């Protein structure tokens, strides 16, 4: 009752709220139409591919679709200590026969072989029997299949088929962490000498961390100079910072290759000044050193620019105030100037770290064996092994890692403290 009496009306009797909504509706539609292209673009180029990547990484429907009758029958297979009942054998036989007609039986053999070594042999035997019409459908299929090869009488192989039943799998993610699902369904680690991915993950984190650290220690003084020098010098310095930024990434990486190789400019210089012997030139490329040097240089502007934009806003009178109040130049810097640059440090470090963690071209060209990152491994699976689902899984793990770092950063510093300029 009271709210009705309080309702404010416009002069022509329409409630104010309704009138306001009507007036703003047009603006809202206009605003939406303006951002719609971008929204569409984002959906097509960002959200959809990530969704697709995720689907690929967990998709395991191939066997599920190939053996529908088998899996239907397996629902009745209760005692997993014993071989499956006749229905399962019959279902598998019928499914397989259909695959043979469609000439897709080879794929199944390969897929099952991945699950359990030796599968390919026994499916091929079964194929031959079917081709020769040796299987009599009127009597027990179970006995006939079991006779084809002794592995068909091994329960492990049937369990392997059963494991492929779910349409989705985490196997690719486990593989990315050097783990797998053992035949008893538990998660196990791969042998120590085959744990390559974990080393790569750790190396990626390590390189990204140190590249961030180096960029910070080099970028901070540069940004400070940029912010405090008189205009004519700071413009020149700014161009020095930005010029490599405008140069192609590939060109910059290639120039580092020219500089760092054993017969390269840097080594020549070291030999010339007598730092190292001519027959003892250090390897500065195709290892971590190369990756560190090239990536730090390439990512430096991403550290300098946010720092610069924050430092530019800090009034020089604050440092003067700090000094006039009795702080030594160091105290004035540490207590006054430095805390005010934290938003820029946060933004710069986060930017460099996130870029470094997914870096690809530079480590691929100068990293050699010990300087490559996880992204190079992803590319390897994309291009060479064509295991796209594994590449997708690792890509998503990388993305999750970045999001976790972002979350931790938000907890520690607060994202609203980031300042990119």
């Amino acid at each position, binding site marked *: 009752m009271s709210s009705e009496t309080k309702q404010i009306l416009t002069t022509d009797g329409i409630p104010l709220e309704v009138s306001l909504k009507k007036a703003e509706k047009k603006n809202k539609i206009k605003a939406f139409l303006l951002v719609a292209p971008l929204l569409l673009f984002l959906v097509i180029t960002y959200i959809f591919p990530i969704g697709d990547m995720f689907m690929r990484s967990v998709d395991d429907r191939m066997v599920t679709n190939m053996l529908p009758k088998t899996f239907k029958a397996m629902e009745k297979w209760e005692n997993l200590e014993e071989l499956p009942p006749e229905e399962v054998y019959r279902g598998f036989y019928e499914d397989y026969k259909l695959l043979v007609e469609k000439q897709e039986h080879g794929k199944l053999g390969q897929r099952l072989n991945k699950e359990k070594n030796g599968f390919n042999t026994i499916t091929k035997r079964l194929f031959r029997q079917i081709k020769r019409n040796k299987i009599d459908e009127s009597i027990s299929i179970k006995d006939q299949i079991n006779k084809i090869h002794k592995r068909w009488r091994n329960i492990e192989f049937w369990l392997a088929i059963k494991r492929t039943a779910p349409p989705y799998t985490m196997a690719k993610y486990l593989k990315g962490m050097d783990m797998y699902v053992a035949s008893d369904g538990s998660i196990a680690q791969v042998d120590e000498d085959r744990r390559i991915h974990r080393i790569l993950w750790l190396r990626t984190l390590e390189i990204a961390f140190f590249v961030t650290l180096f960029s910070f220690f080099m970028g901070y003084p540069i940004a400070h100079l940029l912010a405090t020098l008189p205009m004519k010098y700071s413009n020149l310095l700014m161009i020095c910072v930005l010029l490599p930024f405008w140069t192609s990434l590939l060109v910059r990486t290639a120039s580092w290759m020219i500089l760092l190789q054993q017969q390269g400019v840097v080594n020549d210089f070291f030999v010339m000044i007598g730092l190292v012997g001519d027959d003892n030139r250090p390897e500065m490329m195709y290892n971590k050193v190369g990756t560190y040097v090239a990536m730090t240089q390439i990512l430096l502007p991403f550290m300098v620019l946010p720092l610069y934009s924050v430092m530019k806003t800090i*009034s020089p*009178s*604050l440092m*003067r*105030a*700090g*000094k*006039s*109040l*009795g*702080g*030594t*130049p160091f*105290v*004035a810097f540490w*207590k*006054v100037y430095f*805390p*005010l640059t934290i938003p820029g440090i946060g933004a710069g470090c986060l930017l460099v770290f996130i870029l470094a963690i997914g870096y690809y071209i530079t480590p691929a060209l100068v990293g050699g064996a010990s300087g490559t990152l996880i992204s190079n491994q992803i590319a390897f699976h994309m291009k060479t092994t064509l295991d796209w689902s594994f590449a997708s899984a690792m890509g998503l793990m990388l993305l999750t890692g970045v999001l976790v770092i972002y979350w931790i950063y938000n907890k520690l510093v607060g994202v609203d403290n980031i300042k990119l300029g």
Partner: protein
Amino acid sequence: MSKNPEFVKFDKVDKSYDGKVLVVKDLQLDIAEGEFITMLGPSGSGKTTCLMMLAGFETPTHGEILLDGNIISNIPPHKRGIGMVFQNYALFPHMTVYENLAFPLRVRKVEKDEIDKKVDKALSMVSLSGFETRMPAQLSGGQQQRVAVARALVFDPAVVLMDEPLGALDKNLRESMQYEIKHIHESIGVTVVYVTHDQSEALTMSNRIAVFNDGKVQQLSNPAELYEKPVNSFVAEFIGENNTFNGEVVDIDKDKCKVKLANSEILANPISVKSKGEKTTVSLRPERALINPTDKMDNMFTGKIEEVIYHGDHTRVRLNLLGSSEFILKVPNSTSNLELKVSQDINIGWNSVDARALDPK
């Protein structure tokens, strides 16, 4: 108690930034202990440079600055023990009011209890008790300004420098802060060197004012003398309002001279003219010229009113007098106000002692 009349001493100080132009020329200035001295001048006159040299942020190109008898040119700013209030306050935005005030004490390794006591005292001095936990951004301009003053005073410096501290405040707040700073100065007796380009600020607050122009001190004297007895035409122009007549001295004796203008002659007080034939600019304060004077005055003329502007407490009248239509009169707003109308003729008179014949412009 004996106060050192040369507590701060600029001794033949020159300053050049580019090696071509002298920003400060041969500055000789003594500041007494406990004095409130203002450096007043237009922008670019060298006043802020002087302050920065005293604070230690700029080094003199030549000459020495002495603080209490010691040469300080080679002492870095943080060891000079000089408090400073900056133009934009320069409060540390990431620290609370308490931390801002505690900063100079903490770097001096003062005990925690002592810090609390001093911060408390300083804040109550600027009537901001209870604001300890606020951040500077949560304060109004005037409050920030007061925190800046408190911070410059909290460590009991011998000298406090203020670089146009009221520049960013609105007019009313600026006026009340002027009195507040003046009272703080009177109650604690600290030496204050104040820089401003606002003459009314300088006149209300200072014991003495040094008027800067072109890198030089034009006049150093107390506010009254500066206003009443400017020694040259720059000071006369810069401080307060001014009617000027340009002419040539035709007759001179000890305390009077006759100045020939374009088409008439006036009597004036010879300040910087010595002999006949010299060019001069005669300066007369608007309030020293009276309408229809009852007393006998030695300059009496008739002028025509060109414009009447009502200012509340007074009325400004622009006259066409002695061939110039820029002659300004200030008529106080009293009940016996005259009817002033445009194009009316009125009689104006002033004493020759108030018409100061200065150097020609």
